[in-house]
Structure formats: C-alpha cells, structure tokens
C-alpha cells in the first residue's frame, strides 16, 4: 500500500477536522459554498449524515479517538429540521459533551455545534475558517488523548 507522497518536507501543523453535516441543511449549505466558489481552509473532511440527530456523543468521541484534532457538528436551525425536531436532541448532546470534555481537561473548543441552513454558504465558509484557526491554535489531539 503506497503512501501518498507529500511534496513538502515536514508540513507545518495542519489540524485534522471531521465535520458531521446533515444532508438537508448544512451539507446543502456546504454545497452552496462550493457553487458560489467561496474558499476556506481544506482541513475539514465532511461526513454526511441524514440528520444532526444521528450524531451520538460516542461517534464524536470515536472521531477524536481516531485522531481528529477538531470535530464540528452542523445541523439545521431549530424549527427547520427536515425531521421536525431531530436537531433538538443534538442541541443537548453536543453542548453536554463539550462540558464533559472541559471537566475531563480536554479543550472544549475542539468540539463545536452550529446551525447552518441550505442558503448559508457564506456562513458555512466563515465557520469553517474560524474553527480551523481555533483548532490550529489548540494543537494536535495527541497532546490530550491517546489516539489510533
């Protein structure tokens, strides 16, 4: 299995970010950012889920455990959810997980929850830019967690 060649010697620290995006709103917002040719840092890798309500705290912890330096969950605004109120559960699970991370001594800012509608391409790009810089400042997850 060949390793992807990287044309740079030891690359500067680029955070690895996993984004859980809901198919109906935030994923469509990310698509809109694409069709509008906005630009944002490439660190985020997007995993599509049907609803932000699908993202369990265990899944977020697993992403960190696999080596993600930052995890961002994007869902529909309250009231816009394609599944009526799937996002109501997200609005409790993710903030409570942030609290737990903070109490456990892990920087809570590595995890973020935002609402992005299908029409908010710019907002998506801005949030990704901000979050990438926040995580870059926090450094690799290896400092706080055993990964892999």
């Amino acid at each position: 299995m060949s390793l992807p060649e990287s044309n740079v010697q030891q690359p500067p620290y680029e955070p690895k970010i996993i984004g859980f995006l809901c198919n109906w709103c935030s994923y469509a917002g990310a698509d809109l950012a694409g069709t509008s040719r906005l630009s944002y840092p490439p660190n985020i890798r997007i995993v599509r889920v049907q609803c932000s309500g699908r993202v369990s705290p265990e899944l977020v912890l697993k992403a960190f455990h696999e080596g993600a330096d930052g995890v961002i969950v994007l869902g529909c605004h309250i009231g816009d959810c394609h599944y009526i109120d799937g996002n109501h559960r997200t609005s409790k699970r993710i903030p409570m997980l942030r609290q737990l991370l903070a109490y456990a001594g892990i920087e809570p800012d590595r995890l973020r929850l935002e609402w992005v509608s299908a029409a908010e391409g710019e907002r998506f790009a801005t949030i990704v830019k901000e979050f990438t810089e926040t995580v870059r400042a926090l450094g690799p997850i290896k400092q706080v967690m055993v990964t892999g």
Partner: protein
Amino acid sequence: MTPTHESEKPRIGVFVCYCGSNIAATVDVEKVAEYAATLPNVVFTQTNKYTCSDPGQEEIRKAIIEHKLNRVVIAACSPRMHEVTWRRLLQGTGLNPYLLQVANIREHVSWVHQDRGEATQKAKELVAAAVERVPLHEPLEPRQVKIAPSTLIVGGGIAGIQAALDIANAGYHVYLVEKQPSIGGNMAKLDKTFPTLDCAMCILAPKMVDAGRHENITLFSYSEVESVEGHVGQFRVRIKRKPRYVKEDVCTGCGLCTQACVLKDRILSEFEMGMGKRGAAYIPFPQAVPLKAVIDPEHCLLLTRGKCSMKCIKACGPGAIDFKQQEEFIEIEVGTIILATGFELYDMSALPQYGYGRYDNVVDGLQFERLCNASGPTEGRIVTKDGRVPEAIAFLHCIGSRDENTNPYCSQLCCMHTLKLAHLAREKTPARIYEFYIDLRAGGKGYEEFYKRVQHEGIHFIRGKGSEVVQDGDKLIVRAEDTLLGKVVEVPVDMVVLALGMVPPKDIENIARIFNINRSRDGFFMEAHPKLRPAETNVEGVFLAGACQGPKDIPATVAHASAAAAQALSLMSRGQATIEPIIAEVIAEKCSACGECIVACPFKAIRMDEEARHAYVVSAMCKGCGTCAAACPSKAIKMAHFTDQQLIAEIEGILGRMSEYELA
C-alpha cells in the same frame, strides 16, 4: 447476467471524474485514481471527463460487468446532485443501487480550495473514506408506497387555480384550500395586465368559476391547513374551516345582508387594499368564488360585544346567517401537495422618507390598481383622497427592493407593473406622469415593446431612484437626481405611487414549519434546485407553484404552476413512489426495552413489543433520521445505510490516511 453475489469478497471499482475542468482544475484526477488503485479491495479504477454523461455512464456499466464489481465508489460532484443517477445506473447492471458511495470532490474540494496539492490530498482522503465505507454497504430494497390519487393545493391565487385545473382535468381529485373568503389572490385585485392590457378579471374569472364548479375540485375557502403528517403518497392533512357564520349551501350571494349590515362601509376592506370600505357582513368583490357572504368576527358587533340589531338576519331571505357556526376540522388523505401561497407587498411605512402611511396620496402599486379598477372604490376614476383629479403623478421604482437595508433582491416585475400603471394613469387622466427608475427591466415577451409604447405616450422617465417625498401644501415634492443630467430635481406632484416590492406572506414561517419546507435567504420557499428543479422541494411529493418560491409575473406563475401540476401528476399516474430504504431497525436481542428510542423518535414511529420486551420500528412511518440510533445507549438500533460501523469506517478512512500523511 447478474454479477457475483454481493456478500462475497468486496470488488470495488473507483471512478474519478474530471467534470470538464470543474474538478480537474485544482484536483489531479489521475493521481487520485492512481492512489485509489493502491487501496484495499479496489480492483478497478478509471477516470472520466464527464462521468454523468451517457458515454461516462456507459464506461462504468461496462466496467461493472467486465470486472465483476460488487461495490462502486464515484468521486465526482455532490451526492445531492447525481447520487440518484448513479443508483439508477447500478440498478441497470443488476447491482443493488445502495452498494455505492459518492465522494464529493467538487463542491467540497475543487471549487473551494485553490492549492492543487492540498486539494488533491483531500480528494484522495475522501476517496479512501468511501473505499473504507463501501464494503460495509448492504443491499437495500427501496420501499414502494401507494400514491393516493389526490392533491392538496394550498392557496387559491392564479397559481393554485392553474395547478388545480391542470390536475382536476387530468382526472385526479384536488382539495383547494384558500385562506381568504374567496379565491383569486392578488391577481383578482388587478385592473389590466401587461403587456397585453387584458382586463385581469376577464381572464381570471372563468378559471375561478371552473375551479369553483369542477367536480374534481373540493374548494375549502376561508380555511387553513392545521397540520400534515405522513409522507409522499400518504399525507394525512387536517384542515381548519373558519366559521363564515353563513351557511354556504343556503346563501345565494345576493348581498342583501352586506347592504343591511350596521357597520356597512365602516371597515377598511383588505381586498381594496385599504382604499375602500366594507361592512362586517361582506362579499369581498363582485366576482368572488364562492359567491357567498362572510361575517368578520373581529368587527361584527354581535360577535365582539354580543349585542346588535342583527339587521343582516332580517335582510336574508333564505335565512343563511347562523351565528352559532363553529370552527370545523376536516381530515383528508392526499398523495401530493402543491404550495401556492403567493406573496405580499413590503410594508413601505418602514421607509418614513417616502411618507407612505403618513401622506394621504402616497400609495403602493396594488392600491393604485384598485383606483384604476372599475369595480374599485372610485369606480376606476383616478382621484386623490379628497376627490381631486391629479395634475401630476410620480411612480417610484425599486422602493423596498434592491436595497441592503430592506430586501436585497429585485422583485422582477415591478418595472413592468409600474409601466402599465403609468399607461393607465396617462389614459385616464390629463396628468403629467413621471417615472423615477434605476434600470428599467423589461425582459419578457412583448415587454420592451410595451416600454417603448409607454415612452411614446409622453411619460417622463427620470433615471434616478426617488430619494424622498415631502408634503408641501397640497403638493408632494419628489426629490431625486436625474443621473443622466447629473442634476438634482424636485418634482411637485399630486400623487406618488411606490412600485410593489414583493415579500413572502407574514405567515410563511408557520406554513414552512407545517410542511417541513425550508426557506431561501430572501424568505421565499426554497426549491430543490434553482435551475433544474424549480417546482420541487426537498420533501418528496410537495411542490411549489407561483410567487411563493420567488417573485414572478403572471405568465411565469402559470408556467410554474403547470410544472408543479405536471410533476404531481407524474407521481400520481405512476401510482407508486419509491421511498428510500434508509430506515432504522431494532436488533431485538440487543434491546433492553428502555424505550429511550421511542421518546427520541420525531415521528413516533417506534413502539414497544410488551411480550417480547423489545422495541420495534414501524417501517412505513420511519423517515430515516437516525436520532433513535444515536439515543440508544447499547447501540441496539441499526440505521440502514448510516450504521455506526459505516460512519466509523468513513472516519477511519479519512483519519487513517491522514496519520499516514503525517508520517510521510
């Protein structure tokens, strides 16, 4: 020739698309394909200029058969764009359509990242994620659902009427729900239409009558949709019929009660846009359908204060008035839904500098229409509030539109509408007519010719947005810059007409929530795709017709309404709809019957099997959001196509490759 049995060792084919230069411009497609070839279970890779084109799809079909592929990864545009195309392609080769994973390397990579190295690296990782995930995909059979041969249409304007007639004439039943006492919507308020100067009511009334009488159309006027449940093919709709306090089957529409009403001509008429008055018992306009009286509960003395001489009852021959009428709720089941809730005008009083709502003779486009209309408050005579024939009238374009402080979008048709009003004013009064415009947008069929005609009729066009209107004595001074002369002008006129800036109706947020539709930035309903699917929404079986999707003139509205009707008809004529088999399933032996999933399910689609002591999912009701799977502490619920294993595989695909990247 059926390919190998799916459960055998995965044989993955990876197809990477150039998308012309859309992807290839920043992603090294060949390198991505080369890299994919090195990934586990990948037995075939190929790049393609346009994977979605026929030749592109043909390549994939050939590859699946030749190389006995049982899993397919396509790295191209967003799955929301062509996943349906690729699934149909797999179906064609006999391969289950869900043994496919799409990597979005266009909208999420090539279009948003400029650095070729970074973009290619990211594309590789998304392909690696898909290759890690797709072996875990299991074949899923889409569910077929019977489509009830009937349509709910919300909104009885020209859009709703057109769609209703198209569907009813095709032999399917329509339930048309209209909030106002009569159908007709905003078009019924118009005098003439552009560019043909047809009388609006003359071309609309026949359609209204047809809709009112059509045996395939049940009209619920003065009613609103309370709630909607279920999914495409089986929408259970609950309609609230507001009490008219008039028995519809008895009332002949003679109007005697409206003449007898104690409050006759004392209440501002909504239909007359506040320019005319009506009584508490009233018929909105002479050509109303249904032609029935209605009693306004907010003003009728009996209904508000409980005491009135009730002259209306005495005046009504057949005794149709019934103050004991209550709200009624009706449940219906329909296969498809069309929203045609139209538009409202921007409330210009939010811009005090134009004096709307402060100076008597500053009116908006629809109010001026009522002045021009023969059945309007002034029988078609254009006169100021105090009855004078105006010596000069100014029409101001773009008030409330194309403005970052109010509505940034252009309402598309107010230039043409204002041109028509100017023509009517020129025709009916000796007044000097001015039009203050920025760009005169006359792009439709016959529109530019109409513009030239109106210029020819001696209307003064001043290229400069009206900046303010100030009352000075009995004149209104319109101040603007004639930008072509570079001079500031102050034009005294007797009447100012503000072009109609179109905005969504006030209750659009509530309607959007009932039908689970989201809205675009300008507040109108959001279509499935602005270019390719303007009449569809993200909710299958729910379509959009007319200005509720965005400002439209009448020809565009009618075309859009017929498009929505056609798409509803295509669903209903097929009789069946495929429901994505992405539903949840309880693994009985793992379930400890705690019921957390039952509480978590937004659609109440999970029940408890009391004897067997485990929960189970009613698949027909499950919409596949996965909230239950995330809520279950022991992960005893399997969310088809989005299982924990599949999502974790995708994460490992990404992060596994990333750590390698770091080692390199």
